[in-house]
């Protein structure tokens, strides 16, 4: 992994059209501004992980519950 040190308001360019800027450093939190083409999906990493986990959890159901679901109505 490439690791770069940056100070407040300094930037990192990724390719021609992605720019990251350190906009605030406060305690253990760093706020990063991102300029990127709108077609790019930009997400917090842990959010993607938790959506994957929720999808996996959603699969974990048995046919009995399904049978109940259809019987009740």
């Amino acid at each position: 992994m490439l690791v770069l040190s940056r100070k407040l308001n300094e930037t990192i360019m990724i390719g021609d059209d992605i720019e990251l800027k350190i906009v605030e450093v406060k305690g253990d939190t760093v706020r990063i501004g991102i300029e990127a083409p709108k077609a790019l999906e930009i997400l917090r990493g842990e959010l993607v992980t938790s959506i994957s986990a929720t999808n996996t959890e959603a699969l974990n159901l048995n046919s009995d519950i399904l049978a109940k679901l259809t019987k009740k109505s």
Partner: protein
Amino acid sequence: MRKQTKFFGEIEIEEHLVWNFPKGIPGFEEEKEFALLPLEGNELFSILQSLKTKNVAFIVSNPFNMVSDYTFDLDEATIQALEIEKEGDVMVLGVLTVRDPFEQTTINLQAPLIFNVRKKKAKQMILNDEKYGIRQPAIMSVDAKEG
């Protein structure tokens, strides 16, 4: 085409029920094709069955039945990926985590499934804002179902 399904055994799946998920869905990136199957006896729910893997099948539902003021903006990445041109192209469903007892069932409102009904393309879009949870109680659906 005839396909093995998790809940219905081997069934005939008509072409118009098949949706292309170009990037799969988070956690299941290799599942690129799903069929949206009606759940007989309960029209509030449908089954989103992967055509590749029999055991990958989700229970999905209309999220607007559960949260009447559910609103979000489609991000540009989704609009482009699904080739959405107008609002009428879009259908939205939510993935349910069905629990026993059913009253504890939750719906993922932070990552709605977005379908382009014209192009038959779909994806699970993740909302960056945390207005809606990934495990929102789906109680409303129970009321609707029994009412």
